[in-house]
């Protein structure tokens, strides 16, 4: 049973001005909280720092194959070599630079084995491998099902070895 006084409780939601000084304090507190959260996240993350023979082309490759986003502007020397660039692939951060032998920053050579390989989780390993191949990567092993995932291996045009990995799509219909 409701009467007029109870009916006064219903009705559309309305926004209400927050005290300005309190809002400023809360905004400041949230900024500090974000910085603390970011610092603790970065402290537990290993960031691959790739050295490549042509950083500009490498950025284009990672953008087109992995959908990477370039964060900020790359740092460059006067002669156009990139000393540092930052890419974001999903929640993963990637740094890269051109070769600087004086800083012992060399890139892998496609004719030799690489000591470090990069495994990256993607939405669809088949699509990523196809995009990599179309952009000049050398397919080392085609995508296949393994341990509940779909994964393949390719060597990118700059000598780095990648394994795009995605969840295996369950087969519809009768389980075999």
């Amino acid at each position: 049973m409701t009467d007029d006084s109870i009916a006064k409780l219903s009705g559309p939601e309305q926004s209400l001005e927050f005290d300005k000084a309190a809002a400023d304090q809360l905004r400041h507190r949230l900024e500090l909280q974000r910085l603390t959260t970011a610092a603790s996240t970065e402290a537990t993350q290993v960031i691959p720092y790739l050295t490549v023979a042509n950083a500009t082309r490498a950025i284009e490759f990672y953008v087109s194959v992995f959908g990477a986003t370039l964060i900020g502007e790359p740092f460059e020397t006067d002669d156009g070599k990139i000393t540092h660039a930052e890419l974001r692939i999903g929640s993963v951060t990637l740094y890269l630079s051109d070769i600087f032998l004086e800083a012992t920053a060399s890139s892998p050579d496609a004719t030799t084995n690489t000591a470090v390989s990069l495994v990256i989780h993607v939405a669809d390993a088949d699509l990523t491998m196809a995009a990599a191949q179309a952009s000049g990567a050398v397919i080392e092993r085609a995508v296949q099902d393994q341990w509940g995932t779909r994964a393949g291996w390719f060597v990118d045009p700059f000598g780095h070895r990648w394994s795009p990995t995605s969840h295996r799509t369950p087969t519809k219909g009768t389980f075999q």
Partner: protein
Amino acid sequence: MSDFPQPQIGSDDPVDLVAFDDALPIVFGFLMRRCGHRDLAEELTSATFVSAVANRPGHSWAAPWLITIARNKLIDHWRREARAETATERLQKSRPQTTTMFVEERLEVAAVLGRLSADHQMILALRHIDDMTVPQCAEHVGRSVQATESLLRRAQETFRTEWNHRRTEAE
């Protein structure tokens, strides 16, 4: 005060993200309407955004998601209050608050709501403001449907009495 889009809980449609400056009055309005106490509404609004940043450290969020956090903060508050309240405290709470002067009827309603016990505030807000069914209310309140119906009837009666009392005072 200004109207804002109603949260479409359960909708599959993409939801626009709202930045802090726009989200703040939405969350504050939602809480103020239900608890009727500015200090408490400010405190719970802050707690809502702290939880939001802890879960999603970005600078914007979906308004329905923020409202869900705010509602949970309020329910937690009411539950704590319901456990702590004594009869004396309820009596003190029911006295008119001279420190808060509400002009608009919406805030006047909230002020009356804020004088009730935590249990009564919770059931009236869930049933009549959030428009939940009694079984849905029962889940939040943590009582059987029958006990929730009984609580609702008592809360409605108390609200009517308080409202009429306030109207009489105003006249």
